[in-house]
């Protein structure tokens, strides 16, 4: 990690902490949704968690492409970091969703297109990490392919509620939000995006330190 990146993590972490601490105050002041009432406020954590996951997956996909076609080790380290970060935000989305669903739909889970695709995407990311952990030599290139396919899944997941009518709210809900709903959403969204970048920076640092350690061991063996 460069010295600039090392300074970046505390700044991003502090900023995300500010957003997360102040978000509940703004969310409480937001109006209630007419059909779901109080439980709809889970939306302000649920939607940004998925958006942060998508951001991490796009970083994973682009970094995987760079590693696969340009063989840049730094891109590979970024891809590993992004995959793990995406799993973390996916987990947040997969847990907050059922907490919303049990009240809004009366069930914890529905095997509809949106929810099923979300689980599959999370499993693809976990497969990526398992491959990196236990795949042995050459697994980095195989994993890079999986990373690109994970990114390719994101647009399908995003438009799934428009293609298949399910119990899940449509994607068009977000652009048509009234201002009173929009302010807490975009505030929380900013917090999640900044948190995503902070976690990504910290995770990249871990990969860089591991790479430095490997280089040191290789230098010892060569001597």
């Amino acid at each position, binding site marked *: 990690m460069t010295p600039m990146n090392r300074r970046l993590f505390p700044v991003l972490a502090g900023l995300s902490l500010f957003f997360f601490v102040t978000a509940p105050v703004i969310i409480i002041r937001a109006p209630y949704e007419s059909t779901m009432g109080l439980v709809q406020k889970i939306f302000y*954590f*649920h939607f940004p968690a998925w958006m942060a996951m998508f951001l991490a997956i796009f970083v994973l996909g682009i970094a995987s492409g760079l590693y696969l076609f340009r063989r840049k080790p730094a891109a590979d380290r970024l891809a590993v970091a992004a995959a793990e970060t995406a799993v973390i935000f996916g*987990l947040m989305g997969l847990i907050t969703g059922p*907490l919303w669903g*049990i009240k809004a739909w009366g069930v914890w889970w529905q095997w509809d297109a949106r929810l099923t695709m979300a689980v599959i995407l999370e499993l693809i990311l976990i497969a990526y990490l398992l491959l990196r952990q236990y795949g042995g030599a050459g697994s980095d290139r195989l994993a890079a392919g999986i990373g690109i396919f994970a990114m390719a899944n994101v647009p399908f997941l995003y438009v799934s509620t428009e293609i298949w009518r399910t119990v899940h709210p449509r994607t068009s809900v977000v652009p048509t939000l009234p201002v009173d709903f929009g302010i807490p959403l975009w505030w929380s969204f900013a917090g999640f995006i900044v948190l995503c970048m902070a976690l990504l920076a910290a995770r990249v640092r871990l990969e860089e330190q591991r790479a430095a350690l490997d280089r040191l061991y290789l*230098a010892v063996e060569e001597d």
Partner: protein
Amino acid sequence: MGILRLGGGSRPAASGWGIRRLLALGLVIGLAAGVAVLDAAQPPTTAAQDGFVPMPDIPPEDQMPAAPLVAAAYAVVWAIAVGYLWTLWRRLGTVEAELADVARRIGERDGA
């Protein structure tokens, strides 16, 4: 006299019969009163016993409260973020300690 004799002669039998009848009557009244008291003490039940009838929506007092779910969602986000940061910190600490150890050993070897 006849009345007296009749009364006097039949007293034991009449007395025993009367007591039994009185006891039976008292028991019936007591039971009826007890049932009435117990019936009054029982809250009127609305639970279906002869058959279930569907209704479109449950009353508000039976509905699941939303506040704990919202609080749980917020807590989950915090717990996952803090927990992940903690694991990152631990892993980073382990790698950096090993890095420092290897660097020190290399320095000692080169110095010797």
